[in-house]
C-alpha cells in the first residue's frame, strides 16, 4: 500500500478506535465518538493538505 490517502485512512481508523475505546465506556458512545474523531482526522488532513499545497517545500 503506497497511497498517501489510503495510509491516512488506515492511520485514522486505528487511532480513532483506540481513542474511542480509551475515553468512552459504552459501546454506543465509543462508536459515535470514534466516528466523529475519524471524520475530524480526515477533514483536517485534507484541509491541511490543500492549505499546504502552494508552499514550496
Amino acid at each position: 500500500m503506497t497511497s498517501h490517502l489510503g495510509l491516512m485512512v488506515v492511520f485514522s481508523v486505528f487511532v480513532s478506535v483506540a481513542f474511542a475505546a480509551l475515553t468512552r465506556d459504552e459501546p454506543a458512545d465509543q462508536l459515535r465518538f470514534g466516528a466523529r474523531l475519524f471524520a475530524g482526522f480526515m477533514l483536517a488532513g485534507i484541509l491541511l493538505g490543500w492549505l499546504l499545497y502552494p508552499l514550496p517545500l
Partner: protein
Amino acid sequence: MRATAADRTQSTTNPYLVCAAAWLVPGGGHLWLGRRQKGFTFLITLTAMFMFGLWIEGRLFPFDLSQPLVALSAFGDIGIGLPYFIAKALSFGAGRVVAITYEYGNAFIIVAGLLNMLTVLDAFDIAQGRK
C-alpha cells in the same frame, strides 16, 4: 448493590502489576481488570497498528543516546511491549529508508507504542478505582 467481578478484581490487584501487564500485552491490563471489551479492542487495534507499520517497512529504532530523536523513537517503539520483542527476535523492523512508506511505517509503529502507554495509564486509573 453487589460488587461485580471486575470490582472485586480491582480491589485485590496490585496496580503496578496491572501496569506491567498492560504494557507487556496491549489491552492486558484491561483484560485483567475485567474490562474485556476495551481489552480486546486495544489488543487487536494496537497490535494490528504495530504490525501494519512493520509491513509497510517502518523501522524499530535502536536506543542510540548519541542521537536523541532516534532514542525517543525507540522509546515510543518499545511502548507496545511484547510485540516489540517478538518483532526484534524475528528480525522484523529493519526499515528500508528508500521505501516510500518508510516514514509512514515509523509513524504507525511509534504511535502504536504511545497509544499503548496511554492504555497503561488508563489501566492504572481503573486499578486505583478512579474510573
